């Protein structure tokens, strides 16, 4: 499930961009250092394969519905974690740009939810230890199903946690998790079975693939940087969260002015000002506090808001229409 720009706050989106960007840089360096250039076109074609696999719908037994292969785990198995992650990154970027799937601010979140979970967690920690040596059969089946279920439910939980941390949805985290995780366990079950079916076909058709796969690389640098990134993000987020005043505190600071000078100094004040003007955490509320009820605005300002927004949109559409009309008249449009 793709995270969307509409559900994420700038702070959460930016933090996950930083995490995903670091991993893309590390993976990119590893791939560039690989002397085997045949991998470059192979990776590109496998990225396209992920899209093509969506054309192959299969019926899911017992449900009457149909599904298709997601491909995250399969890429990790075929290419190894770093290359698999890079290919999934390119797939997610193309999806965000061309298919309105996910979004640009949510790209980091999607790389973490779908790429990191399958390539750096589910594959090396679940699939590889369970499935080795790669042979078609029960072990492969079991490892694929378990790895896909772990990877996808982590990703689903990620969506819920990121949405809650962004403070955009009023759905409580608990119910959101209770909704997302079982759905993704079910999706993971189907994904795992499909992945196992593809892998056992491949291993029967081309047994040499099992030996020709890229040798396992040391994962320590990735795990270390993942951990560091997680700590950094958590630290940055929590310091921002605890120092940024909520709406009430902010208005108190604003109205009290000089009397409350202390919090406006130094880093706390800076962060407060950043929050007030840029709002990386729109609607941020301190945890445990009751949901801030939107105050019933007085009728005057409500009306002004509606009329103002309507006027603004009318102006913009007017500009759009006249621009388009003038370009048509010049004969530049097709």
């Amino acid at each position, binding site marked *: 499930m793709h995270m969307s720009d509409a559900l994420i706050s700038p702070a959460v989106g930016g933090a996950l961009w930083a995490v995903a960007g670091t991993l893309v840089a590390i993976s990119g360096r590893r791939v560039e250092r690989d002397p085997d250039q045949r991998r470059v076109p192979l990776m590109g074609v496998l990225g396209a394969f992920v899209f093509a696999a969506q054309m192959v719908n299969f019926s899911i037994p017992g449900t009457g519905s149909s599904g298709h292969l997601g491909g995250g785990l399969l890429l990790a198995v075929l290419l190894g974690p770093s290359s698999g992650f890079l290919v999934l990154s390119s797939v997610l970027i193309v999806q965000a740009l061309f298919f309105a799937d996910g979004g640009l601010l949510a790209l980091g979140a999607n790389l973490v939810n779908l790429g990191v979970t399958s390539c750096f967690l589910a594959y090396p920690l679940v699939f590889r230890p369970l499935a080795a040596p790669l042979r078609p059969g029960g072990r492969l089946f079991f490892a694929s199903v378990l790895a896909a279920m772990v990877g996808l439910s982590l990703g689903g939980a990620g969506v819920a946690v990121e949405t809650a941390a962004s403070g955009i949805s009023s759905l409580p985290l608990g119910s959101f998790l209770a909704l997302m995780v079982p759905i993704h366990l079910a999706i993971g079950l189907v994904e795992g079975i499909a992945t196992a079916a593809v892998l056992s076909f491949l291993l029967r058709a081309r047994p040499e693939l099992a030996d020709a796969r890229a040798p396992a690389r040391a994962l320590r640098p990735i795990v270390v940087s993942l951990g560091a990134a997680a700590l950094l993000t958590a630290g940055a987020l929590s310091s921002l969260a605890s120092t940024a005043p909520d709406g009430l505190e902010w208005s108190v600071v604003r109205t009290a002015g000089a009397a409350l000078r202390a919090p406006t100094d130094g880093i706390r004040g800076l962060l407060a000002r950043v929050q007030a003007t840029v709002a990386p955490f729109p609607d941020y509320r301190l945890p445990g506090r009751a949901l801030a009820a939107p105050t019933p605005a007085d009728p005057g300002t409500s009306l002004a808001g509606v009329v*103002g*927004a309507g006027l603004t949109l009318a102006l913009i559409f007017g500009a759009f229409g006249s621009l388009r009309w003038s370009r048509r008249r010049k004969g*530049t449009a097709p």
Partner: protein
Amino acid sequence: MGLGELASRDTPAARLDPRAKVVATLAYVGIVASFGRHELFRLAPLAAYPLILAALGDVPLRPLLSRLALASPFVLGVAIAEPLWGRSPALLLGGWVVPGGAVAFATLLAKLVLSVSAALILVATTGFDAVCAGLGRLGVPRALLTQLLLTYRYLFVLSDEARRMVRAHALRSPDRPRSTLRGAGTLLGQLLLRAFGRAERIHAAMRCRGFDGTLRLSQAWHLSLGDALFLSAVTALLAASRALDLPALLARLGGIS
């Protein structure tokens, strides 16, 4: 015409530097996300960016709207839950009380439309090769750019191949046109084997043309006066809509307070 090919026409928006458009789009998406979930009206001025850019790029709205309609049913699902939670009144329109949940629902949809259309218009006015070249100049790792270009290049080729295989399968099993899970394993496995073979042929062809590990994109790099104007206009729009309540100011100008 695909979204990416629209950019091959010579329009004012297509002439802008790809880097400028990439940076502007990212900043725009960040600013859209920074508005709270009841700040529906303050999002209105931000509609200017995608609409003006679409007008300058002669981007037809219909393909954009059809993609928007498909965009993320997941967001719709989350948004629909909003009116269930936010029952407290947020707006008074005449005698009509609008609950906070309804406003939050509309705000989520507005954010979705704005951020998705900004991304689609970026590609429609720039083209994918130029977006990638711009990303490269902005420091995105080469290995990722190569993957992006190759993935996009073969996306439609492999999708057509998959469609032909599915059709062939359906013609041979008319009583059960949709494949089973096990059958899908074979179909997808065949598709993978064909993809492996294709990758070998592509590699041979690339080597023949002197491939040394990186793809080269021809792109002239110069920030023109138009780019400077574009960037300052976008900065002004984003800063003004973030710092000021433009719709309220406009309403006050019109005498409604």
